[in-house]
């Protein structure tokens, strides 16, 4: 099964939110998903109801077979937290990742597994993990905010000069425009700019929606928190598109949210 890396040159653009809800969207439609957190903040686990005091994580077991360390957080859904770490532990971890073919050999049981979809979350900017995973990753998803600051990132992305040329491995990179708000004219203009420039490389747009933060606060998926949430719908559409691009079957092809439901 494919490997999806979610990365971004900037922090706070909604990477982890996207990772969590994409994972939920796939697992709810019957695909076995493992989410791996490569971000030392170790925050992804909080979206999946893993306890704050649980300090397990991959950072301490770089050479162990990760597949046996997966924490089952929901039906079809598994999680590998980064774990609590100090500076030295992180340095050792990065050293381990530097081995050529680290993901092909050391972690092959996980990254070669035909039954498992891997979604990896990264810290902003360049990281060793992102560099190393490029050998196996099929698809990069780059969430960006629909604000004025992103426009300068757009042009960098378009010229391919972002993140030391990392973006573009496998099937290439796709943009997700996060926190779109059509009430704001500037926001609409950024959307139009992205639409005209990225064309097919624009995977989708996600509405700015407090349902997402509320759901995260309650450690549930946004689909479970409010099935009518606009952002939930947007992310589900993105999940369907990802499946299409990667060419794998979503076992239950139906949407969690029926796009044109009738009133009850």
């Amino acid at each position: 099964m494919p490997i999806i890396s979610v990365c971004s040159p900037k922090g706070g653009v909604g990477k982890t939110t996207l990772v969590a809800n994409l994972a939920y969207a796939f697992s709810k439609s019957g695909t076995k998903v493992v989410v791996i957190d490569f971000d030392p903040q170790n925050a992804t686990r909080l979206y999946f109801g893993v306890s704050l005091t649980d300090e397990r994580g991959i950072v301490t077991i770089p050479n162990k077979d990760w597949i046996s360390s997966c924490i089952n957080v929901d039906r079809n859904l598994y999680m590998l937290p980064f774990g609590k770490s100090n500076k030295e532990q992180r340095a050792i971890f990065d050293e381990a990742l530097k081995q050529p073919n680290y993901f092909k050999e050391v972690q092959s049981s996980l990254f070669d597994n035909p039954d498992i979809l891997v979604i990896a979350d990264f810290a902003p900017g360049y990281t060793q993990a992102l560099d190393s995973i490029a050998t196996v990753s099929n698809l990069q998803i780059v969430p960006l905010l629909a604000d004025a600051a992103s426009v300068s990132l757009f042009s960098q992305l378009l010229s391919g000069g972002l993140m030391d040329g990392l973006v573009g491995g496998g099937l290439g990179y796709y943009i997700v425009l996060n926190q779109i708000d059509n009430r704001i004219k500037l926001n609409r203009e950024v959307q139009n700019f992205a639409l005209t420039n990225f064309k097919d490389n624009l995977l989708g747009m996600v509405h700015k929606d407090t349902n997402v933060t509320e759901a995260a606060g309650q450690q549930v998926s946004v689909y479970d928190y409010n099935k009518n949430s606009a952002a939930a719908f947007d992310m589900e559409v993105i999940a369907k598109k990802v499946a299409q691009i990667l060419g794998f079957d979503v076992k239950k092809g139906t949407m969690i949210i029926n796009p044109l439901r009738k009133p009850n």
Partner: protein
Amino acid sequence: MKKFLLTAFLLLVAAPIVTLVVIAPMSAHNQFIFGITMIIACIVASVCSKKHFISFCILVVTVISSTRYMFFRLTQTLEFPSLIDMIFGYLLLAAEIYVYIVLLLSFFQLSWSLKRKIVPLPSDESKWPTVDVYIPTYNEPLQVVRDTVLAAQCLEYPKDKLKIYLLDDGKRKEFAAFATEANVGYITRTNNFHAKAGNLNHAMTLTNGELIAIFDCDHITTKIFLQSTVGEFIKDKRLALMQTPHHFYSPDPIQRNLYLGRDIPPENDLFYGPIQRGNDNWNATFFCGSCAVIRRSALDEIGGFAVETVTEDAHTALRLQRRGWKTAFLDHILSGGLATERLIDHLAQRNRWARGMVQIFRLDNPLLGKGLSLAQRLCYLSATTYFFFAIPTIIFLLTPLLYLLFGISIVHGSVELLLSYALPHLVLSVFSNSRLYGNYRYSFWGQIYDIVLSFHLVLPTVVTLFMPHHGSFNVTDKGQTVEKSYFDVHSVKPHLIVSFLLLLAIVFSLVKLCLPNYFDMQVGPTALNIFWASFNLILLIAAICVGRETANKRKTQRIFLEVPVNVYQASGACTRTVLRDLSMSGCRVDSFDGPTSNFNEDPITDLEINSDITSLCVNVQQIADMHKDPNYLHFSFVNVDLDTRREFVRLLFSRADTWVRPNYKKDNPLVSFFTILCCIKDSLFGKRRTDDIHVAVVGAKNE
């Protein structure tokens, strides 16, 4: 050779036979058998085949039977015992001859209709002509005109070849301001000479597009209007005019007050379908003032739009055709407008049309003058004399009174003999009209439309006939609302009086028939006249029901539109739901539950509509719903700016598939008559039309 043989056959074989069939005298018994045979033959043929040839055969039989009746009337029924009988007798005869001629003309017009196809524009855009869009207005509210202008801006045509002008004869400052804000041309003038025609002619001096598209200020165009109409002008350099149907998305007074929501073709469908298609076949389509494209060079040749009559449109077309220019009719609904709202406005509008057509008949008679083919002359004759129907209609309404109340006998001969000739003529005319255009007008409804108008048209047509320069242009009011239901006594006063007389005559005669010892009444003629009077009474009551104005408070029309929407709440929650219907002022969406559905604490502030045509975001305010249906939320729009409004127009009116003529059931004269009775019953029992929505469903964006 083939043509020669056909002519020879027609002259030597068919003509003598037909003449013989028309003039052969028969006894009542034989004539009955002959008549019933013709009727049965036509019905059987009609059931067996839908082919045009069969329709034509039915028409021939109908014409033979009607001609036979007219021959009988002229030769055997004109013996009158006194002068009074004679005067009324000849009046009725004249009315019947009029109807007979109209029947022949309409068969000629409708038998060969041209189903014109859209000529695609060449792929090389540089060959496309430049187009000026004129939107003339005089006193209509900005609210009506605004969307028409915005819709014209949504027309799909190269930007550098399309110019839009608002021609404001009202010299209104807010219109000038609006035109500037919307970025369209604004043209006004110092005088109002020659009303609309003068307004258009003035604009022609200031603009220079090769083609001119004209939209009345309430006719909202779809984006494909020019793509569908301009191609023909490139293909045919002698084409001067392309007319398209006027389609009304609001109900006219007859639909609103009498149909009461039933699926009955509206009045103008017959004209903007079979009649104009038939005219097109003879190259005699005429201009209807709006929703049309005209070639400037052709107009220049005749000195611009005709200003001599109050129906400048038809007259302009006639002039163009006298100069050898072609006209065409494209039977695709490419724009939608507002129907006249009230009966009184409807009457005023038809009054103008009637005067204008009679003016053309007098001042530029299509039978006379140069440049027209015989077929064109007949088509224009049919149009310009159409409004004379008022007088015969009234004669037919009143005639039974003469016998029932005053004992005046105006048709000589036995009832049996008269019926044996008249019944096949009447039954077959109804039947073949139904076969010819039953999908566009149901049987007997034409008579109701005529009766609604006829009392009000006698004076204007007669006065104009003798004083064609008399009278002025009156503007039809559009976009008003009927605030409260009321009965328009004034407009149907003559109908009420005649109905009362007919009722009186029927009761009076029935009483007389029941008391044969006291009164000397002939049963046959009395029964016949009672039947006739009752039929008239039913149609009259239907016409009177149109005067019961139903309240129509909705200022803008609602349209069903099923697209996804996102609603923004004050807290920042954004929720996806479905739009159900939309108007320019508000909308209805599916309600939803969940953690954010307490709308009192967390009101919905904005609404984002997404479809494959456009996406837009608008400020909204939730409004209370009359029906208290918890499944839906109702909103009104606030602070809609012009750009947002244009997107609304694009979504609501500008789509290629906005207007589709519904498929009406096939006409059946008996069913149609029964429907009329039902309409009358519902109207008298106070039933009101509830749905005033034009149905148009648009698929959701595929995501």
